[in-house]
Every structure is written in structure tokens, then in C-alpha cells.
């Protein structure tokens, strides 16, 4: 980690905790918004494990997010305790991702994206037709049983519970990307052929990454079910796969926290603009476009960009900086 990186981490943690304490005082609407933010942070980060670290362009992550959401919704009907239901959501989503990863492991590039998209849509169509999953209407009234260590039917308790789950999952993902496996993934991203000639069985690593990302997406989906209390087929739709990709793009792939920042910005923006105008998607689109054109490396690159702009102005006429 860079010098000062530790201080940034501490400052960030303090800010998050302060915000977490403040949010419940802002009313139920804000609580729902920021729960969604936290969940999308996890979802976007899980997608970025594939996109940014392994260069696996999956357009079907909503399948695993949705699988997690439906697992929790169905198990909540039989009064499963939340931790057990969420563990099941992770397991179901990871298993599904493992199978999908195996099936798609021989395909690369655009064809791969299309296959993952198709698999997601198959699941979407299946749930739409399924009576057990509530068909078009989905499952509503998802709630944890009103007992246990702390009563999650209380909005504030649920808020803290969701934050805790997201925090633990984020730490786990951070652990994965900075492990030897994480390094191997970035190596595969850079040059899969070179990696193979170092003895790295590229396909197996892709399947592993796919499984881990799928499990994390499943957890995000499960938390989403508790947060919104309603799970409809739309959670499985491809638009749901596109949004974490956009968050990662806006925030900055190839970094761990970039997609999280992107998730915060976009989820918040969608909410604020959604309140202000019916054409909110148009404005979000404009913001997206602006980012892709002006800050292609995402929010995380802004400090660097500003520094270079400021430095450039001061150093006009001087020899150009020779950073490799």
C-alpha cells in the first residue's frame, strides 16, 4: 500500500461510520436509499472482480443477484433466520455461477458476454413463468422473522445488519484481490497466454473468479430482498446486469474502491434525479457519457487528473514530467 494509504483507509472508515449513524435520523426514505447504496456498492465490487481484475466481461451478473434475492424471499416465507437465509443465497448464487462459469469457460470476448447475457435472460424468463416464484408479480412481504438476537423488523436494526454484511463481504473481496490468487487474476487479465505458459490453468481461475463474484452478488441480492421486502422478476433482467458495470466504469475499474464510489454516485443520482424529474434516466445518461469522455479512468483518477492539470499550468514551458 502507498504511504498515506493507511490514513485514507482510516479516514474513509470514520466517514462511513459517521454517515451510518446519521442516516437513520433522516427518515425512512433516506434509510431505504442508503441501504440500496450499500447493496449496490457490494454488487458493483463483485462485478468488478470479474471486469476489472480478471477482464471477464460478464453481462449476466443479475442472474446471481436475482438468485440471491429469490432464495431469501422464498426462505423468508418459511421463517428462516436471516443469516441462514443469506448463507443459502450465497451458496445458491455461487453454485449457479460455478455451473455458468464452467459452461462459458471455453468462450471468450464478445461471444462470452452474449452467452452470459443469454443465461441471465433464461433465468428471467423461467422465473416469470414460475408459480412458486410468484410469476410476474414476484414475492412481496419479504421480512426476517421477528425474533432472534436483534429484531430485524426494526428499520434501524435492519440498516445496521445490512451495513455489517456489506462490510464483511467487502473485506472478504479485498482479501481475495490482494491474495496470490488475486495477483494471478490480474496476470491473466494482462496476458492469458503468458499466464498459461507460467503454468497457470487459466480456465480454472476464471471459473473460480466467476464463482466468488457470483456468491458476492447473491449476498447483495439477498440483502436487497430484505431491504425492499419485494422481489420481482425485474431483478434478474439484463438492465440489472448493466448497472453495476456502469458503476464500475464511472468509479474506475482496475481499482478496488472505484466501483464502490461509482455505486454511491449513481445510486444517489438516480434517486435524486428520480425525485426531480421523470426524464431522470436521460440525465444519468448524460453524466455517464461525460464520465466516459472526460474521466475515462473513473472517479478514482480525478485527484491525479487535477494534480496534473494544476502541475501542468505551473510548469508550462518546463520539461515534461517523465513518469513512466
Amino acid at each position, binding site marked *: 500500500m502507498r504511504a498515506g494509504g493507511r490514513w485514507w483507509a482510516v479516514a474513509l472508515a470514520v466517514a462511513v461510520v459517521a454517515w451510518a449513524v446519521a442516516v437513520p435520523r433522516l427518515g425512512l426514505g433516506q434509510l431505504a436509499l442508503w441501504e440500496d447504496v450499500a447493496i449496490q456498492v457490494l454488487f458493483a465490487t463483485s462485478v468488478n472482480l470479474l471486469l476489472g481484475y480478471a477482464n471477464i466481461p460478464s453481462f449476466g451478473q443479475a442472474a446471481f443477484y436475482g438468485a440471491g434475492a429469490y432464495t431469501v424471499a422464498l426462505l423468508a416465507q418459511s421463517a428462516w433466520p436471516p443469516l441462514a437465509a443469506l448463507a443459502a443465497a450465497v451458496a445458491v448464487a455461487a453454485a449457479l455461477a460455478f455451473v455458468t462459469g464452467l459452461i462459458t469457460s471455453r468462450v471468450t470476448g464478445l461471444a462470452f458476454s452474449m452467452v452470459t447475457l443469454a443465461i441471465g435472460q433464461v433465468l428471467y424468463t423461467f422465473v416469470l413463468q414460475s408459480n412458486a416464484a410468484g410469476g410476474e408479480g414476484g414475492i412481496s412481504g419479504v421480512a426476517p422473522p421477528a425474533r432472534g438476537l436483534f429484531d430485524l423488523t426494526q428499520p434501524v436494526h435492519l440498516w445496521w445488519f445490512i451495513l455489517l454484511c456489506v462490510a464483511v463481504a467487502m473485506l472478504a473481496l479485498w482479501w481475495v484481490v490482494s491474495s496470490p490468487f*488475486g495477483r494471478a487474476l490480474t496476470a491473466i487479465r494482462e*496476458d492469458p497466454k503468458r499466464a498459461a505458459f507460467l503454468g*497457470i490453468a487459466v480456465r480454472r481461475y476464471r471459473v473460480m473468479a466467476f464463482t466468488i463474484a457470483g456468491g458476492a452478488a447473491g449476498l447483495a441480492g439477498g440483502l436487497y430482498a430484505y431491504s425492499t421486502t419485494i422481489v420481482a422478476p425485474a431483478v434478474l433482467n439484463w438492465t440489472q446486469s448493466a448497472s453495476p458495470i456502469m458503476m464500475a466504469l464511472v468509479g474506475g475499474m482496475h481499482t478496488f474502491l472505484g466501483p464502490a464510489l461509482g455505486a454511491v454516485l449513481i445510486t444517489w443520482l438516480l434517486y435524486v434525479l428520480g425525485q426531480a424529474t421523470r426524464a431522470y434516466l436521460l440525465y444519468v445518461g448524460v453524466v455517464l457519457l461525460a464520465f466516459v469522455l472526460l474521466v475515462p479512468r473513473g472517479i478514482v483518477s480525478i485527484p491525479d487528473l487535477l494534480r496534473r492539470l494544476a502541475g501542468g499550468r505551473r510548469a508550462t514551458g518546463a520539461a515534461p514530467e517523465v513518469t513512466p
Partner: protein
Amino acid sequence: MSLALRLEGVTKRYGAHVVLDDVTLDVEPGTLHAIIGPNGAGKSTLFGVVSGEHTVARGRVLLGGRDVTRVPAATRVGMGVARAFQVARVFPDLTVADNVLVAVLASHRLTQVFWRRRVPERTEREARRALERMQLTALADRPARSLSQGDRKRLEIGMALALDARLLLLDEPTAGMSPEETAATTRLIREVWRETGVTVLLTEHDMQVVFDLAQRLTVLHRGRVLCTDVPERVRERPDVAEVYLGVSAQHA
């Protein structure tokens, strides 16, 4: 720590173009064996066949007596085959240190470890030593993409060495290097070969390097083996001179 290599009647085609034509070749374990031949002779293709990059139309590839014709590349690495490419392939956005570290981790089969964050101290040490050996310590924190052609070649050779290979395939290891770098790399290859007893198969256009290093020479011409012999005798063969002179006359 050495592996024998045998090619039996290997034929490789791209469409109608026969790139390797019934190639039979024996590389004794522990020798320093060079393959020479004009541009397009099929040297790199032969390396690709040995390392598992290419499939063959006909023939067999044997490593240490075992038929590996259909064994995938990553598995052959596990058997001890390490390779450096003609145009060095490194991980461009990783630092020089991380490039080497990934190779060392791979050689210890630690790259699947996702449940532990720290890289074992022993592995770190080994990676540092590999950097020193290749004289890359000063460049350790630079992204590999920023390296010169020669440095990149050295980095890749270092990564191949880090794999503890039993058969080392070096495709024009000194291409793009300055005379000093070439001399240093030649020395290093001989040193590693002496220390570890690894089998080395290399191609090179720089005849100085070839005659400095090789114990045996195979001349390849248009996908065919012209001869395999000790360097002194290969040098005296009229057909070898003709192949080279003929080609350079065409180029002139």
C-alpha cells in the same frame, strides 16, 4: 533437473503451407542445444509445438520419454517446460517485481491461494533473488510496459528461470539487446545451465551467441531438419553455408 526432448516425425501446417515437415529431433537431457536457420525456417513454430502452444498435424512430442502431444501448455509447464517468447511477453501493467512474483508463485503452485493475503516470506525472497540475478532490482517498481526491449527480454527470461525449469526454451534470448547486454545474458544462460543442469533449447540469429553457448546445433530450413551435429562440424558443412548465403543473397 533436466528433461529429454524428442520430436518424432512432427508435421505442422497452416492451410497448405507446411511449416514443419517431418521433423525428428533428439535433445539429450542437460545439453545446451541451439536451433538455427533463416527467417521463416520454422524455429518459433517448433518451440510452440514443444511448449504446447500449437497442435501438430502428424508426429509425436515426447518429454522425458512421455508422449505429451496432446497435453495442454499449462500442464507441460508443470512437467518443467519453461519458455520465453521471441517477442517478450510480460504482464504490461504489473510492476517488474510483480511479474517475477507471479512466476515464483506459479512455480510453487501458490497462485490458487485466495484465503491468505500475505505472500510467504520464502517466496518474496526468491522473487527478490530472481530480480537481482537478472539485474532488474533497480527497475522493480516500474510497470513492465515502460521497459526497453532488452530489459523486457531479460525480465521474461528471469520469469522463465523462476519456474525452476527442467527444459528451458529461449526464442532469440538476446534479440534487441546491446552488445553488453547480449554478453551478460549469454553469461547468465551458461551460468544457470551449469548450476542447474537444465536442458536448454534456444534459437538465435547472433552466431556469436550460438557458437559461444551451444553444444549441439540443429539447422532448420523451410521446416526441414538439415542436420544436427556439434558446432564445429556444422560450420564446415557446405549445404549449411549455402542455406545461409542463398538467403542473404535473396535479401540483398
